[in-house]
């Protein structure tokens, strides 16, 4: 286990170094923005990684909540299968295809939709019991880190290109910020909640947060958006070398995120095991003894 981790860590380091080399040396300079655009090789992969992690957090939270009751678990399973089936069929109906933004292929949408049940069952199988909650926590923590990178690199890029640090009306900026706020509040809740009920409460908050995302998106939809169109699936033209670099960067970031998640998960597992062992040994008597000795120490003074 430890060996595998070290090997993966070495590979990830190499991968990240290669991605950096591609980003700085190989990828061509943007005709309009100059070299400053190269920050997207960090910005965009971080964003995708963060969204993926938040998605995992959502799936894990739903599953954790569903597990509180056997009947609920069944219902949610069928619902998830239903999403997969309906989603795939729907993308091949001409009416639905007409609604898709230009350049977005139906097969791509179908695969994305299929990812929901796939993730759901894969995670359910791999993370039994309380491990599901640990997964949700890990994904949220690492997700917030990557989301922070997105929110920091964004303005650094925006200042020279747009001339402003922040565009309040922009849909992607604002919804990413709100997403970040929601997950920070999730982490705050986990910190401040007493441990017996934290997991269920946090899972409920994660579900609320996930429900909020489309609403945030639509609420800002009315404003004109300043953000560049999505680089993939948005139909924009992009130098193939740029796309190549971007995808390699993303792969490297994913490996890195996986590695961080893995060690964080192990840490949480060990922490909980230690906590449980400690809980079974610790005696409340120790606490009352300390209280009882208080007057004594006072009189000694």
């Amino acid at each position: 286990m430890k060996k595998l981790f070290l090997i993966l860590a070495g590979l990830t380091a190499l991968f990240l170094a290669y991605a950096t080399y591609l980003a700085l040396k190989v990828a061509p300079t943007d005709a309009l923005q100059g070299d400053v655009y190269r920050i997207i090789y960090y910005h965009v992969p971080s964003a995708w990684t963060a969204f993926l992690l938040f998605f995992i957090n959502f799936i894990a939270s739903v599953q954790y909540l569903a597990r509180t009751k056997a009947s609920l678990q069944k219902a949610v399973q069928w619902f998830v299968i239903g999403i997969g089936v309906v989603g795939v069929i729907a993308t091949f109906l001409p009416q639905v295809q007409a609604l898709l933004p230009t350049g977005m292929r139906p097969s791509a949408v179908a695969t994305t939709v299929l990812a929901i049940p796939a993730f759901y069952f894969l995670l359910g199988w791999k993370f039994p019991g309380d491990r599901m909650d640990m997964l949700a926590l890990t994904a949220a923590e690492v997700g917030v880190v990557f989301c922070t990178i997105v929110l920091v690199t964004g303005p650094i890029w925006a200042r020279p290109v747009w001339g402003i640090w922040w565009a309040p009306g922009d849909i992607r900026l604002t919804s990413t910020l709100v997403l970040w706020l929601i997950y920070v509040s999730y982490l705050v809740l986990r910190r401040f909640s007493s441990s017996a009920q934290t997991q269920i409460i946090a899972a409920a908050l994660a579900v609320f947060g996930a429900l909020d995302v489309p609403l945030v998106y639509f609420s800002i939809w009315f404003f004109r958006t300043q953000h560049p169109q999505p680089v993939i699936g948005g139909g924009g033209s992009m130098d193939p070398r740029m796309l190549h670099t971007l995808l390699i960067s993303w792969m490297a970031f994913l490996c890195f995120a996986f590695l961080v998640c893995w060690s964080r998960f192990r840490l949480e597992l060990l922490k909980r095991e230690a906590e449980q062992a400690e809980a079974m040994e610790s005696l409340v008597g120790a606490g009352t003894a300390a209280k009882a000795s208080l007057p004594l120490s006072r009189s000694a003074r």
Partner: protein
Amino acid sequence: MNSFWAVTTATLVKDIRLEWRSKDALNSMLFFSLLVVVIFVFSFDPLAEESRHIVGGLVWIAFLFAAVVALNQTWARELRNQVLDAYRVSPAPANGLFLAKTLGNFIFVCVLEALMAPLFVIFYNLHVLGPAWQLVPIALLGTWALVVNGTFFAAMSLRTRNREIMLPLLLFPVSIPAVIGMVAGTTAILTGENSAHFYIVLLLTYDVVFTTASLALFKTILHAE
């Protein structure tokens, strides 16, 4: 179903009676939002023309903060003497309690808004240019949006340390779309520059989504221990 409504009404009546006797929530809420209004008046002293553009934001910020005061009070009442446990051991449906609490808060915050709205009109010399009646659905839907999530999150933060600080930390991020809807909708009506229909639909969607989610999850939250 019959017992569900019986429990909801009984709890609502009980809450209103308790509030009537102590007036804890309503008094602190009223005074608090009065303070916010006065501070705003000192901070911004705009012309009538400008005020139309900013009052939408000020009004709802004041109500949002005041609502948090009320929301923190609702469950505090159930925690004294741990009365909540008496509810939890009874066969009464959890959602009956939730709905009663939400309705109670909705009534309190609506009363507050009805009392405070004239103050804004006076202090800021407001003159509505758009269809004024649309302010009513925006206020009702917006208040429900704040209160339904607020009641749920207040129940969630019941068992956390620093309970009273927790509530806004949880409530505000998730409420952002609702706040955008309320503020932008109110501004649209005050200035009469564009239609508020989109925001009314947005608030309605928000209300439906989160009322459903709260009702679906409240039982799990209430019995989490």
